[in-house]
């Protein structure tokens, strides 16, 4: 299984969905349309490509690009041939909803909860979308670059000693 082979398979099956592709450090990276992501991953898993392991889901936030401000990155792995692929989707702030992969990969459950917790990305169809690592009443999504990452309750620190 080579990058070209898999990319060709994806483009053949979903000609409308692929936005761009690259191979940073030799890893096939495909940006796809958000609506088609679940279909594509379903295809990667159940076709003869047998990409059967979901390694990672993580959010990204680019406040300087309003039309593609929030993204989700999916890493997938074929255990038999040791083939890896990375899928990216991007969306705007008013539409942070993605299809959940929990029906395809049980392991997506916690990863999606974490991504929701830190980036506020909603996963449609997730059985239990609550904060997982932060406390329940935190009230915001820390990795969105909109909130102070420092603790505002601190009283004993002199900012000038920390170069601020």
């Amino acid at each position, binding site marked *: 299984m080579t990058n070209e082979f898999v990319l060709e398979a994806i483009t053949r099956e979903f000609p409308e969905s692929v936005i761009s592709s690259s191979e940073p450090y030799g890893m096939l990276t495909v940006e796809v349309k958000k609506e088609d992501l679940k279909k594509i991953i379903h295809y990667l898993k159940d076709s003869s490509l047998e990409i059967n392991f979901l390694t990672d889901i993580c959010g990204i936030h680019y406040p300087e690009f309003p039309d593609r401000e929030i993204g989700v990155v999916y890493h997938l792995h074929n255990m038999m041939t040791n083939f890896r692929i990375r899928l990216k989707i991007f969306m705007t702030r008013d539409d942070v909803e993605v299809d959940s992969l929990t029906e395809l990969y049980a392991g997506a459950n916690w990863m999606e909860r974490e991504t929701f917790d830190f980036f506020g990305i909603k996963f449609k169809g997730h059985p239990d979308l609550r904060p997982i*690592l*932060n*406390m329940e009443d*935190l009230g915001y999504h*820390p990795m969105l670059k909109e*909130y*102070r*990452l*420092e*603790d505002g*309750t*601190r*009283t*004993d*620190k002199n900012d000038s000693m*920390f170069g601020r």
Partner: protein
Amino acid sequence: MSDKKPVIITDAPAPEGYEGEGFFATKLSSVIGMARKFSLWPLPFATSCCGIEFMATLNPTYDASRFGMERNSFSPRQADMLMVCGTISKKLGPVLKEVYTQMAEPKWVVAVGACASSGGIFDTYSVLQGIDKIIPVDVYVPGCPPRPEQIIEGVMQVQALAESESIRRRDMPEYQKLLDSYNISN
């Protein structure tokens, strides 16, 4: 190998009192204070590097046992000295508070290291900026992490507190007020 023999002090000074032939009279609080001082049971609440230093404190080299704290209590109900060693995240805060409230009076709290005392370098959204935000603290041990000698110094500070405070101190309205300010019912 050092040929120094270990010196074992078995004669801790007696509290102030009246002595005569065949009797010794002193205040009850002094006797109880002395008893408490030499039988502190620590409850280790260790999360990170300070916890490892605390484990070193329990090792034969530093030998915390000689303070009468041979037995580390892993149940809050039998412990009287809560040693909070390490970073406490905000999510862990309610757990720590629960552990503290389950301890019976009298109880003392030692915040070991920069993180437990003030959040340390972790001035961030997830880390509690000092455990004194949620429970009252008696002794702060500085250091990042502190050496076992410093933790021993902190324990000795607690001993000094336990020895000198009145056995009724914790019934005082000031103490009630302190606990109320932390929303802890006694």
